């Protein structure tokens, strides 16, 4: 039952993409958050040092003899040494005037007696982190406001940040790679169970409609439960259809049999040729319709079975022999001899019911189209492949139609007057295809047709 299934997307891919995408988003988020956090910490670190420098300078401010002196320690600037040799700028203001340091350093807008205030300014074309603090000095009749600003470039900060960014990026990439591996592992584990279920169901025989009882993950329970209920309903409806067909056949065939028997009896009693003609036509019509109904049912059955091919070992020779026993009485009625030859041990794998049906159709055909007192030869052989060949001594196939005969409802034009549905060879050909074999029609040089069913 290899039905075409419309496939749109893949759960596995979707899950994998979701997991990997999530991992990517997390990795990027991780990178951004950690980097920002690191930037804040690094900036706080730099601020701490510049602020300490400002404090140490401001602490040194004193009023001596009415003059402000700021004898700040060497360490005030020494503490600002960095690995990246950042540039250092400072300015000391007394009230509004610069009394020492860089005159052009941007003046911080700072209130009196403010402890450390930070800002980032641009000085000499580069961004500079500036810390400022102010203090009011009081001497004898003397009151002045001192502001100290110390600035530092941010080369070390960016160097540190670049280093952290690199590490965080590496960490993020590692996280992403690991998460991706886990995602693929998780998806393949998850879908492994689905695969196992699929395998278990696919491996079942054609008539196995039992519910799935193997333990399955909770997420699959609704699906499997639906599947089980579908199979139960299918089983039920299959049984019903089988019974229906059997019942229908019985109901139709029994009255037909009654009519036919009456017709035959009546035929023996009437004398007038026109009445006899009518009765014969009636019998023939009954035969034709019952045969057609039979073959239609057979064909439907074969189409069903071919989709769910049973695989058994079949001994073609034994099968043909069995058939011959059943068909001999019919052959005898026309004084036809059924001869069987066997060469080697022809065995095939397949559905014995289908193969028997096909062979029966072949011999039936031969019987129908053979003249009285002729011979039908049935040869079974395994050379070159297992095959059954049925040859008769009838009129043979019309060479123009030989290729089309196996088509449904197609009958030869040279067989008028013989009851047939046209389905016989179609059935045989379908069975051949279902078993990977083929049906060959040919005419013998000496007259008569040969049909070969080979596997």
């Amino acid at each position: 039952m290899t039905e075409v299934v419309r496939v749109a997307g893949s759960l596995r891919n979707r899950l994998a993409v979701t997991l990997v995408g999530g991992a990517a988003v997390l990795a990027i988020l991780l990178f951004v958050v950690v980097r920002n956090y690191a930037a804040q910490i690094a900036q706080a670190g730099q601020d701490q040092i510049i602020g300490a420098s400002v404090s140490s300078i401001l602490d040194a401010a004193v009023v001596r003899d009415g003059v402000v002196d700021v004898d700040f320690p060497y360490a005030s600037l020494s503490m600002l040494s960095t690995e990246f040799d950042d540039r250092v700028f400072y300015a000391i203001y007394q009230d509004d005037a610069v009394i020492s340091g860089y005159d052009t350093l941007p003046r911080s807008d700072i209130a009196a007696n403010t402890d450390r205030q930070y800002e980032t300014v641009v000085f000499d074309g580069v961004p500079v982190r500036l810390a400022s603090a102010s203090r009011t000095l009081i001497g004898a009749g003397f009151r002045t406001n001192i502001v100290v600003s110390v600035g530092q470039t941010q080369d070390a900060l960016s160097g540190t940040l670049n280093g952290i960014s690199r590490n965080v990026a590496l960490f993020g990439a590692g996280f992403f790679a690991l998460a991706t591996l886990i995602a693929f592992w998780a998806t393949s584990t998850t879908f492994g169970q689905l695969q196992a279920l699929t395998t278990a169901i696919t491996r079942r025989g054609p008539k196995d409609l039992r519910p799935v009882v193997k333990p399955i993950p909770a997420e699959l329970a609704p699906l499997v439960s639906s599947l089980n209920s579908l199979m139960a309903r299918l089983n039920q409806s299959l049984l019903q259809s089988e019974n229906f067909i059997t019942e229908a056949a019985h109901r139709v065939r029994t009255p037909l049999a009654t009519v036919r028997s009456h017709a035959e009896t009546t035929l023996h009693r009437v004398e007038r040729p026109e009445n006899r003609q009518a009765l014969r036509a009636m019998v023939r019509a009954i035969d034709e319709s019952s045969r057609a109904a039979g073959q239609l049912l057979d064909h439907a059955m074969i189409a069903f079975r071919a989709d769910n091919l049973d695989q058994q070992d079949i001994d073609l020779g034994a099968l043909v022999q069995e058939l011959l026993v059943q068909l001999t009485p019919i052959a005898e009625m026309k004084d036809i001899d059924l001869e069987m030859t066997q060469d080697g041990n022809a065995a095939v794998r397949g559905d014995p019911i289908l193969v028997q049906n096909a062979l029966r159709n072949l011999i039936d055909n031969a019987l129908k189209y053979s003249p009285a007192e002729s011979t039908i030869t049935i040869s079974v052989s395994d050379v070159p492949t297992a095959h059954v060949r049925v040859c008769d001594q009838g009129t043979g196939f019309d060479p123009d139609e030989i290729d089309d005969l196996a088509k449904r409802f197609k009958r030869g034009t040279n067989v008028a007057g013989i009851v047939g549905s046209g389905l016989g060879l179609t059935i045989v050909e379908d069975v051949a295809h279902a078993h990977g074999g083929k049906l060959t029609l040919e005419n013998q040089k000496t007259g008569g047709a040969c049909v070969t069913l080979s596997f």
Partner: protein
Amino acid sequence: MRYLVLLALWVLPMLAHAQDWEDQRMFGVDSSPTMRIISSTDTSFFAPIIESFLAERPDVSIEYLVTGTADLDQIFRASPAEFDVVISSAMDLQLKLANDGFAQRIDDITHPAWAQWRQSLFAFTTEPATIVINKAAFAGQDVPRTRLELIQALRADPDRFRGRVGTYDVRQSGLGYLFATQDARASESFWRLTEVMGSLDARLYCCSGEMIDDLADGTIAVAYNVLGSYAQARQDTRDKLEVILPSDFPTTMMRTAFVSRDTLQPQTAADFIRHLTIAQSQGADLASFPLPPLITELDAAGRSRIALEPALMTYLDRLKRRTFMREWESAIIQSPSAPSQ
């Protein structure tokens, strides 16, 4: 700073015509583009290096201009485009120039971190400040090995040393100011020594060369904080003088060089700095150059170098300088007579 600029603008026209250089010399062929080096180092010390550079680069010529460290700072600040390479022994002034953005970054020079700043200021010598004595003046007497021994020696016989002690005039010499401030930072004995020297009417000099001349001819018996390299380099004075490395704590200076931000020949200037640093630290013929080499590892005595760091700007601070000068002057100039200049 504003006043400095105004001063520079006023001074500049005169500089263009006739700058009062201590020395001025052309190297190489006249026709080729000229690279100008402004330096505080005597030409004789630098000539071999310049010549070895020109041997590799015959396509350039070099004008070598010599002036004092303080002058150098002013002249260069006033017209940075006039000069391509700046060389000075005043580490503090050099570092401030670099901090103020006058130095160009040269990324492809590999130099130890302690010997360069911002990949723009490069040290190329290691030179300790020393005590130099006239051997004759100390005949029959123990030679002082530390500052304390020097103080004791001076105090023990003040008459013998009166007027015969020499040191830098820190008001004139940038290097002298650097040595003095670094000494003061390191030990109180600096101020005691300065006071002793002041009480002995110490002579104050602008430059090492003059101090060594006076030592050699016996005008002074001892000089404090002289560049020993100068004394050792001079053949005429080598036998008369003894160079003493103070064993209590040494003050070691590194001569530095940088390329002017406004140079028109950045490649040539960078090549020169590269040549200079290589020749002074790992060149095959270190000994053949008169300049002391850059000692790349600390010796056993633990001679500490003055670190190349922004803290060097501390004593360049106006208020700090004012305070230091006031204290120095009050220590060294005790007699009513004006110091010799």
